[in-house]
C-alpha cells in the first residue's frame, strides 16, 4: 500500500518508461524470433495445404521423423541421468577439482558442431582408434544410429546439469540431511525429497535438451552418412530437400521441427501457468 502511494507521485513518467521498454522488447522479439518462425510456415504452405501434406507423407520424411524421435528418446534420458548425478556430486560434496569438473560439463558448449561430429569419426571411423576393432566384430557406430545418438548426447550434454546445479546450490541440503537423520535410505531420500524439490528445473532441462537434440544439425551431419531413409534425421532431410530445390518439402519438414519446438514450449508454458506458484517457490534463489 505504502509503496503504491509512493509510486503515484512518479506514475506518469514511469509508466511511459515501462511502455517504451515493453515496446522495445516486443519489437525485437517480433523481428528476431517471430519473423523467422513465420517465414518457415509461410514457405511451407506457399502452395497450399495439399502439397504440404504430400511432402510430409513421403516415406523418406516419415523415416526421418522416426529416426529423430528415436535418437532423442535415447540421448535425452542418458543426459538426464548424467545431469542429476553430476549436480548431486557438484552441489552436495566438497572435493578437489570441482571447478574443473564444472568446466568440463560446459565444454561441449564451446566445441564447434563441425568438430563435435568429427571427434566421433576420429574414434570410431574406419581410420579411427577403434575403427578396425569394431569393423572386425561387425559393430557399426558411425553412419548408423549409435553414432547419431553419441553426437547428439555430446551436443546436449550440459543442458540438464546446467539447469540443476544453480538450483540445488541455492536450495542447500538441509531437507535431505533431515531425511537421512530421520532414517530414510539413500534412494528414499532421493525420490521423496530431492526429486520433488528439483522437478521443475529438471523438466526445463529435459525440454531444452530435447529441443536441441531434435534440432541438431552440424554434428549429426558428419556422422550420418546421409543414407536416404536410413540415417537422415529431420534437420538433414531439410537440408537435402532444400538442396534439391524442393522448397515446400524442405520447409514442410522444418515446420514440423518448429511445431515440435512449439509444442515443447507450450507444455512448459502450460506447466508454468498451472503450477506457477510452486515453480516460483523452487526457482533458483527463490525462498
Amino acid at each position, binding site marked *: 500500500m505504502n509503496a503504491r502511494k509512493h509510486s503515484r507521485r512518479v506514475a506518469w513518467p514511469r509508466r511511459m518508461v515501462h511502455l517504451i521498454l515493453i515496446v522495445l522488447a516486443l519489437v525485437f522479439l517480433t523481428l528476431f524470433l517471430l519473423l523467422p518462425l513465420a517465414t518457415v510456415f509461410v514457405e511451407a504452405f506457399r502452395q497450399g495445404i495439399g502439397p504440404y501434406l504430400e511432402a510430409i507423407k513421403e516415406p523418406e520424411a516419415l523415416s526421418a521423423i522416426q529416426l529423430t524421435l528415436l535418437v532423442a528418446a535415447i540421448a535425452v534420458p542418458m543426459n538426464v541421468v548424467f545431469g542429476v548425478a553430476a549436480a548431486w556430486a557438484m552441489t552436495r560434496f566438497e572435493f578437489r577439482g570441482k571447478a574443473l569438473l564444472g568446466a568440463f560439463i560446459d565444454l561441449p558448449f564451446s566445441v564447434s558442431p563441425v568438430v563435435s561430429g568429427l571427434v566421433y569419426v576420429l574414434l570410431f*571411423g574406419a*581410420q579411427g582408434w577403434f575403427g578396425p576393432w569394431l569393423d572386425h566384430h561387425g559393430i*557399426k*557406430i558411425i553412419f548408423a544410429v549409435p553414432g547419431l545418438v553419441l553426437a547428439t548426447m555430446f551436443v546436449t550434454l550440459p543442458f540438464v546439469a546446467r539447469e540443476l546445479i544453480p538450483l540445488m546450490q541455492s536450495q542447500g541440503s538441509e531437507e535431505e540431511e533431515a531425511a537421512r537423520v530421520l532414517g530414510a535410505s539413500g534412494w528414499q531420500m532421493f525420490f521423496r525429497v530431492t526429486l520433488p524439490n528439483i522437478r521443475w528445473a529438471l523438466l526445463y532441462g529435459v525440454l531444452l535438451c530435447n529441443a536441441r537434440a531434435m534440432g541438431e544439425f552440424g554434428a549429426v551431419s558428419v556422422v550420418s552418412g546421409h543414407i*536416404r531413409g536410413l540415417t537422415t534425421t529431420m534437420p538433414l532431410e531439410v537440408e*537435402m530437400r532444400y*538442396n534439391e530445390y524442393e522448397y515446400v518439402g524442405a520447409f514442410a519438414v522444418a515446420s514440423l521441427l518448429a511445431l515440435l519446438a512449439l509444442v515443447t514450449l507450450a507444455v512448459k508454458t502450460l506447466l508454468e501457468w498451472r503450477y506457477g506458484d510452486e515453480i516460483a517457490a523452487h526457482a533458483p534463489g527463490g525462498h
Partner: protein
Amino acid sequence: MKKSFLVLLAAASVLLSAAAFAGDVALLNVSYDPTRELYRQVNTAFAAQWKAQHGDTVNIRMSHGGSGKQARSVVDGLPADVVTLALAYDIDAIADRGLLAKDWQKKLPDNATPYTSTIVFLVRKGNPKGIKDWADLVRPGVQVVTPNPKSSGGARWNFLAAWGYALKQPGGSDATAKTYVKELYKHVPVLDTGARGATNTFVQRGVGDVLIAWENEALLARRQLGGDTFEIVVPSVTIVAEPPVAVVDSNVDKHGTRAVAQAYVEFLYSPQGQDIAAKNFYRPRSPEVAARYASQFPTTHTFTLGELFGDWRQVQAKFFSDGAIFDQLGPGS
C-alpha cells in the same frame, strides 16, 4: 551401466542393418548432391532389369552430399558399394586408403565417366547485362555467383573452365590466366560452400547477374524453378566436366555384392542408362543417344582436364591446396 549401454548400441545397430538388408540384394550408391533424380530413375530401371535377368530383387539405397564430404565418409567407413562423385580426385582419395584399385579409372570405358557435362552461364531473363562469353563476366558492374572451389568439387570445374578460357586466348599463359581469374573472383559477392547453395543464392535470393554452373544443373534449374525467368548462355570455350563412377572393391567383397555392383555401373553405359542420363541433362557418351538429344546440348569448343591440366593430383596441388593459386587470389594477398 556402460556395458548395458554398449549392448544397447550393438542391438540397435544389428536391428538397423537387418532392416536395411532385408531385400535379396542391397546396394549403397554414395553420390553427390545433384544426382538424385538421375539415380532415382537409374535405380528403378536397373532393378527391373536385374530382376528380369536374375530373379533377385535389388534394393538400392542412396546417399547424397558434397562430393568431398561423401568421399571422406567412404574412407571413414560408410559402406558404399558404388561411388558416383563429381570429380576423380575424390575417388582417388578413396583409392589412396586402399578401398579400391589405384587404376580404377581404367576399369570402365571413357575414364570411368559414363556421362559428362560442361560449364555454362545461367543469366536472368532477357540477359540484361548482355553476357555472351567469359570476358563479359569481368566487366564493371557484373556480379558472378559461383561456389568456393575449396569446399565444392563442382566449383573446381568452374574455376578450371575460366582458367582454360584465359589460357586459350591469343597470348594466353598461366600469368594472364591468373590475372583473369583473380579479376573474376573479385566479381563474386557470395562464395557458397556447395553448388546447390550457389544456385539457391542466385535463384531464390536474387543475388548476382550470372551463375556459373554445370550444364545439367542449369537446365534442371531452369526446368524446376521457372523456365521463363532464366536463360542459359554457352560460352565460346568451356571444359568437359567428367563426373566418374567406380565400384568400391573392398566393400563389395565384404558384402558379396561385386556382381551386382559391376552390373550397376555397366548399366550406366547401356543404351537405356545413357538415355536416362540424357533425360536428366547429362551429356551421354554414346553417339547414338547423343544424336537423339542433340537439340538439348548446344555445340561449343571444349577442352578436357587431361588436355590442359594433366591429372587431378597435379591440378589439386597447383590450384587448390592450401597456399596454392586459389588462395593467392584473395584480397589478403
